[in-house]
């Protein structure tokens, strides 16, 4: 029972979009559009699972005065303030969208934090390139040469250096050998994903359900 019901459901619900892909009839397509929004709702309900865990962990950190506990206060305060201004509109019905403070906090605090964290990548690509692009063997040398050619091809400086030859060369590299390899990986990975999907739909692969009764 406890395993059969979920497996039967996976099969039925999993075959539905496959069916709907080939059957245009409105009876099928209407339901399919509904399912799209329904599952977004299910996913929304999952968020508290994470919130409960995070809050619990940090509260116990503060209680036990574990190292770095003051940072847990910062975390919980940030969470509380942001969540409050996020939901207050819906709860009181006062705002149709977000509380203006919510948008301010996002624009001037969350968004710059995101952007700066993201921008660290500029430094990391540099250090990774320095370390990884060494002509250790044939494969590494190919990797190194392709990288340098494309880097030079992307910047105006490369063309200045070679009389305009770098852009066409790097385009050729992107459009021919790169595209060929990408295509090989795309086809392979898509087949892998399709066979994994079939395993899940048919109930052959069940790790995600947990094994116990």
């Amino acid at each position: 029972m406890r395993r059969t019901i979920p497996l039967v459901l996976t099969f039925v619900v999993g075959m539905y979009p496959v069916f709907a892909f080939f059957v245009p009839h409105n009876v099928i397509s209407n339901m399919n559009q509904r399912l799209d929004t329904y599952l977004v709702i299910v996913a929304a309900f999952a968020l508290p699972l994470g919130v409960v865990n995070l809050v619990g962990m940090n509260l116990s950190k503060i209680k036990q005065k574990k190292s770095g506990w003051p940072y847990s206060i910062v975390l919980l305060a940030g969470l509380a303030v942001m969540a409050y201004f996020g939901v207050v509109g819906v709860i009181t019905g006062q705002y149709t969208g977000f509380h203006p403070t919510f948008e301010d906090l996002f624009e001037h605090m969350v968004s710059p934090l995101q952007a700066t964290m993201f921008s660290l990548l500029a430094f990391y690509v540099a250090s990774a390139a320095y370390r990884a692009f060494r002509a250790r063997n044939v494969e590494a040398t190919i990797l190194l040469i392709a990288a340098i050619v494309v880097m030079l091809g992307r910047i105006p400086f490369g063309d200045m250096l070679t009389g305009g030859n770098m852009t066409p060369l790097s385009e050729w590299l992107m459009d021919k050998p790169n595209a060929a390899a990408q295509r090989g990986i795309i086809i392979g990975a898509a087949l892998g994903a399709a066979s994994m999907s079939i395993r899940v739909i048919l109930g052959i692969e069940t790790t995600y359900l947990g094994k116990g009764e």
Partner: protein
Amino acid sequence: MEATGVSIWVWVNAFLTLCILSFLYKDNPFFRFAESLFAGMSLGYYIGIVTVQTLQPNLIAPLKQSFTANYNFLLLIPMALGIMLYFRYIARVAWVARIALAVYIGYYVGVLMMQKIHGQVIPQTRDTIMPITTGGIDALWNILVIVGVFSVLIYFYFSIEHKGIVGKLSRVGIWFLMISFGASFGYTIMARISLLMGRFSFLVNNWIRPLISG
């Protein structure tokens, strides 16, 4: 909110930016502060987003409006599935949570499978069928691409030991992969630098310049 000709928000923004950048030197209390604040605020942000952009328009509003119109009562199904997720907390009925997971995973797996077969495998296979007898340089490049696709697919072939001719072909496949990885890496550096420019141009143009010029 105008302090020194620069709004307090710009100061906050600049401070948090510098806190994160300081991690490049080493882990420090400023970074730790920003990181903790970031974790908390971002989760709070998503609580707001999910409530306002998903639950409100897709669940709460339609149910409030009318229970019967447009089959709105069917919305009780995803709601029930969502609530089932919480059964995890009660050991005796924890298995019920699986029902929600089964539906969620089943649906997306079906959708994605069709998308991969229809949108990727078939068109990419089709496009590998290229003319090789037209003469000229294009035919040569077409042959190169075909060899690339075949050799990479052979590299991913698991049923045979990679020895002999298969071994050689899969080696060629690895070369193609290496060209692709190198080229992609080189290509992407630009994207990453753009991000840094965005931050620096904020610090210079919105924060420091106005401070200097008054």
